[in-house]
């Protein structure tokens, strides 16, 4: 007996002779997989960093803002920071707040919680866009000037009192300075405080990560599911389609799409999603090929259930685990791709992005502004590393479980 088999057979002892075990339900496995993953030190480290990024993403307007949190002027308190919150800011805050609350509600299943969150989102979005109107013009040095003039009685500023788009027009020689007490991570060539830009860039990272991957998963699951279920010509044709997308180097494909379709934020998300679906399709196809011969699938077909029900309500929960792993790695690669594109100058222009800041590091004349390379670079690296760690832990938790029983 091999080592594994030996330890396994001995450990399997409360002991029947090898009787075929009934396949455990997906929920039992999911629970165990989640617990295993969460127990691993890798997941904890990864989640710790991602929690920091998520925190920065949600609370960015309160962490890094040229507008103070609270000002007392002429005896009245006001909050410029809150006044300048955009609808997106509000949405993120509301979703985060409600998300934490619903997570605590253990009565509901995971899917119901998700549903509740989506409902809240659906209600909140139109409200936010209708009622929240931040001032159109941003005069960032407004409150700094007021303070210098002594007209403010009390000021409670944000921890980092600079917005990412604050070009420091009142301190033009602060541009492109290395880290100092004023600007912890330095200032870039436009005058933006690097730390502030990094905090706000967390949003882009999270958004692109999740939404692009979400798109990639949906496309991949649908195409892969159809291929795995129908086989024959559908499979043949689908495989060629997958090979087309795999043969063209992803970055080249991205550059091509960007060159032809443009590079605003939402387009970027769609584009990155459109290039990342092939892995998911392959996994789902393999799983569905395996599942379609199993009895429970035959039963659902015999019962006359509609196709979408068979594919997505019955087969999908059984085959989803490699996609979960792939999606986690996919988030990391989506962030990496967006950063790369921004670095090359083909990415986002308006929003602050880590890759974009990295672009400024290597000046044309060969001057190397190290703080523009190290800090944003670290941001990208740590985030990608964190997701990869979680992906690895997930893979270890899911794979042996599901495929060892067969």
């Amino acid at each position, binding site marked *: *007996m*091999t*080592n*594994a088999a030996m330890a396994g057979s001995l450990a399997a002892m409360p002991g029947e002779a090898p009787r075929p075990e009934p396949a455990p339900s997906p929920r039992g496995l999911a629970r165990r997989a989640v617990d295993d993953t969460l127990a691993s030190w*890798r997941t904890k480290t990864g989640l710790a960093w991602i929690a920091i990024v998520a925190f920065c993403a949600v609370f960015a307007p309160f962490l890094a803002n040229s507008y103070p949190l609270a000002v007392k002027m002429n005896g009245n308190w006001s909050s410029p920071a809150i006044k300048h919150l955009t609808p997106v800011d509000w949405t993120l805050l509301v979703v985060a707040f409600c998300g934490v609350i619903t997570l605590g509600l253990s009565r509901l299943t995971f899917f119901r919680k998700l549903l509740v969150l989506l409902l809240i989102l659906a209600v909140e979005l139109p409200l936010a866009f209708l009622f929240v109107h931040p001032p159109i013009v941003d005069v960032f040095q407004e409150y700094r000037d007021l303070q210098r003039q002594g007209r403010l009685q009390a000021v409670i500023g944000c921890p980092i009192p600079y917005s990412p788009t604050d070009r420091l027009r009142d301190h033009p020689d602060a541009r492109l300075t290395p880290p100092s007490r004023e600007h912890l991570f330095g200032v870039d060539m436009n005058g933006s405080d690097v730390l502030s830009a990094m905090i706000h860039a967390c949003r882009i990272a999270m958004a692109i990560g999740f939404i692009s991957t979400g798109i990639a998963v949906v496309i991949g699951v649908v195409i892969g599911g159809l291929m795995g279920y129908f086989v024959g010509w559908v499979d043949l044709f689908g495989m*060629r*389609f997958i*090979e*087309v*997308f*795999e*043969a*063209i*180097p*992803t*970055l*080249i*494909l991205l*550059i*091509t*799409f*960007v*060159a*032809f*379709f*443009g590079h605003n934020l939402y387009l970027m998300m769609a584009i990155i999603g459109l290039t990342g679906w092939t892995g998911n399709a392959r996994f789902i196809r393999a799983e569905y090929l395996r599942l379609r011969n199993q009895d429970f699938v035959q039963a659902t077909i015999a019962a006359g259930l509609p196709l979408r029900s068979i594919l997505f309500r019955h087969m999908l929960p059984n085959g989803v685990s490699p996609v979960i792993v792939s999606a986690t790695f996919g988030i*990391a690669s989506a962030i*990496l791709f967006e*950063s*790369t594109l921004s*670095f*090359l*100058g*083909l990415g986002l222009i308006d929003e602050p992005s880590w*890759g974009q800041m*990295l672009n400024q*590091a*290597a000046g044309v004349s*060969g*001057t*190397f502004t*190290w703080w523009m*390379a*190290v800090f944003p*670079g670290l941001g*990208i*690296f740590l985030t*990608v*590393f964190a997701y*990869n*760690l979680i992906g*690895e832990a997930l893979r270890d938790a899911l794979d042996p479980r599901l495929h060892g029983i067969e």
Partner: protein
Amino acid sequence: MTTYIIRRLLLFIPVLLGMTIVVFATVALSPGGTGASLLAREGGMDPRARKAIEAYYNKRYGLKDPLPVQYFRWLNEVSPIGFHQNEDGSRGRFGIKMPDLGESLVRHRPIIDLVKECLPITVLLNVITIPIIYVIAIVAGIRAAQKRGKFADIGMGSVLLGLWSFPQMLAGVLAIGFLASRQYAKLFPTNGLHDLRSGSMPFLPAFTPVGFNPGWMLDMGWHLVLPVLCLCYVSFAFLAKLERGAMLENIALDYVRTARAKGLPERTVLLRHVFRNSLIPLITVAVNILPALLGGAVVIESIFGIDGMGKLTVDAALMHDRELVLSDALVLGFVGIVAYLVADIAYVLADPRVSYD
């Protein structure tokens, strides 16, 4: 096995066609469609330039024709087998011809010339990189499997994951910043593949009365060190992890126990039996690695100023040179498909179990 190879070659054709369709669809569906360059510069163009561009587009796509016709027209231009087109636009005879990849409207040069200049450089970068990563990854993977469980192995897993997560552009920027700039250590050259004086250098290193002349080959080698290093490490980390995983997986299999029971020394078991099996997933994964390497070259070439296909494409995208981007995607996609085919054949050679379905 030959039937398998022939089948794969035949399947190669629809993939190629599919790629052309995807690429063309990108153009056609984009805002402005196939004639977008025309529209973009509507305002400031003088009529003669505009007429030339219009003629170009008509010849290539047929701007007023329906999309499928445009596609076939373009396909005909681009493929090496097709109808020759006469100067006035009428159809010539059918036969083998030089693929016409169009003209770069920004650089005013036929694209095929640009490709001829840049493609060999990208291929060179990759050809150097691939053996390096495979050899080092295999050695590292075997080592990790030999020392499984011990600290070196567990630590190595996370280190490799970290390497894999480290963005290539950051590595490149840091490398140039710290190792190749005047501010810190100028150990390596910053830019390009050749020194400015390399035109007058002899090929091999030589000692001249004025000192050591590195020669063209060594000079290029020196310029290649940093770019290749930055290109390697991501794929190497991935492959090393894969190799270790494959080795460990195989060690637990039954045939290893049989080999030991035969009386083989542990080293032979590992190197002859386990290793050979562990190569199989490595080859399978080559299919994904090769396009990734081609893509990675994009970033590295841009950072290090190496005039390869990647840099060509990026510059083209930045300058809105749509024709060039299009053709680059096509060419690199084609290279990717060829690489795919090679990997497929290698896989068949490696695994006798493969079923030809």
